């Protein structure tokens, strides 16, 4: 029989200690998130009701509900995705189907990386300079959505690129061999097969922009508006901004209100993200290759 020497045993103990320490550290990483969720639920749930969701804020935002902020968030998110989705998909198509691996491609990749890394407040400055002032959109839903779209573009490009790359090259070759042009191949082979991945990335981007605050701060979101936006040239309120306002700027807000607002915001984002995760796993099981 083989008996491990003391040296080996020590090694094993050290290894187990190491693994244990790592798993505890990993656990501690997620602990705060769980505690935060739990705590938001406990503090916010008593106020959360249909009335809270469907009423206007009243008495200087110290009472009432958050309806206009939800409407505003929807406007912003939907318009921004409408703008960034086509652009992002085109950019990803170019990178995956057309661009040769050369200097230009490297610069484009670097630009995408930097676009993703630019601080959100710098995006806000850009939105203010470019959309609000230069293109004369004024502080409006349109300007804020465009700013969000610029922020989301790298996210959408990256996720789309990934799903385009996941379509096997043999699919394209088969299509070219039966005489289809490059564009026909893209339209009938590449895009349909990568559609689920693109959709997943899109939903993820929606979740991200729903919570963004800094980028829309000066471009189209108001602290308080007594009416709902009538067109894209109006300002609007947003959930994220509302949370910022009632937790730092307004005095006399009942304690549970910001909790409930935070809870609504986080539930909205988590459910959007869950859709993205579910879509991904659903399509993964149905994938044909």
């Amino acid at each position, binding site marked *: 029989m083989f008996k491990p020497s003391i040296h080996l045993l020590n090694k094993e103990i050290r290894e187990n200690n190491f693994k244990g320490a790592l798993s505890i550290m990993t656990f501690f990483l997620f602990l705060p998130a769980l505690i935060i969720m739990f705590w938001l639920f406990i503090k916010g749930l008593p106020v959360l009701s249909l009335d809270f969701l469907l009423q206007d804020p009243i008495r200087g935002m110290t009472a009432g509900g958050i309806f206009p902020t939800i409407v505003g968030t929807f406007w912003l998110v939907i318009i921004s995705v409408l703008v960034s989705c086509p652009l992002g998909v085109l*950019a990803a198509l*170019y990178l995956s189907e057309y661009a040769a691996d050369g200097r230009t491609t490297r610069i*484009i990749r670097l*630009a995408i990386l*930097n676009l993703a890394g*630019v601080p959100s407040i710098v995006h*806000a400055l850009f939105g203010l300079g470019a959309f609000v002032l230069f293109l004369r959109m004024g502080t409006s839903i349109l300007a804020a959505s465009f700013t969000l779209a610029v922020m989301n573009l790298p996210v959408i*490009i990256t996720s789309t690129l990934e799903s385009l790359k996941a379509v096997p090259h043999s699919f394209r070759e088969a299509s070219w061999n039966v005489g289809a042009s490059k564009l026909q191949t893209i339209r009938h082979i590449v895009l349909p097969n990568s559609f689920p991945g693109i959709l997943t990335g899109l939903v993820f981007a929606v979740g991200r922009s729903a919570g963004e605050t800094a980028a829309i701060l000066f471009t189209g979101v108001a602290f308080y508006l007594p009416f709902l936006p009538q067109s894209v040239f109006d300002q609007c309120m947003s959930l994220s901004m509302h949370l910022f306002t009632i937790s730092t700027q307004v005095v006399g807000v009942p304690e549970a209100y910001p909790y409930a607002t935070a809870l609504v915001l986080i539930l909205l984002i988590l459910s959007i*993200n869950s859709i993205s995760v579910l879509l991904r796993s659903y399509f993964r099981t149905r994938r044909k290759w």
Partner: protein
Amino acid sequence: MEMKATETAPLAMEWRQKKSTKPKSERFFEGLIKAGGYSSIVLIGAILFFILKESFPFLVGAFDFKNFFFSTNWNPASVNNVSYGILALIVGTLCVTCLSMLIAVPLGLATAFYISEFCSPRLRETYKILIEFLAAIPSVVWGFVAIMMINPMIIKTFNVPIGLNILNASIILALMSLPLIVSVGEDALRAVPDTYREAAEALGATRWEVATRVLLPAAKNGLLAAALLGVGRALGETMAVLMATGHSIQIPKSFFDPARTLTATIAAELGESPKGGEHYQALFAIGLVLFIISLIVNVTADHLIRGRKK
């Protein structure tokens, strides 16, 4: 293989000639795709252009390099003693970033090691989804958590008058940048070929030895890039830091002092500054500084990751 390439060359030529006769709609769409491809370069250029444009009068006028970067006197709204010194803001940003990275980098890389090397595939999937959720919590909610939860905790634990300070912001920033550090770090570890692990294990190395002696050196650049991207994230974070640091423009003396960061200053003051005024332009100049810093951080991180792949 060489032979084959030359054989197909005439065919490729023919195909190319055919391409030039393709219908107008097709050429239009391909033009559109190409334009889309260049959009990110255009946008980065546009960001730089518009921030320069808005801050230009300040940069050629009241801007004084020495005063701007080396004076702690940020007093843009004063009537007779206007001063634009961002040193205190830079120091505030650095303090918050460094402390948060001291927490987040070790924790994040340890987690990356655990997820990539030690846990079962199923657990890995679960953790990855959890990381995505953690990354999805918006910064304004983190700021809210800083005010409502961490603030009283710090006051109680350390017996200090205010809990909105550098420590608070660093804890929040650490939690916010962890998902990025973990996922980039994990990518770096996965990029190390399995043959490295197998070779080390064949020599009798335990997994601890594989991790520290083989994977750590092999994935060094990628792990460094992960840390750097975390730094970039922490530097650029705005809302959470605005809410968590407390408002005080000063060189902090301890971690329990409130501070102000570059990003938070823009967010807090741009709304009050009259459009086109000097204060407003100075804030755009701060934006320019932030833009350049983020450019440097991202390009360096990319360089590190690329170096690894070669």
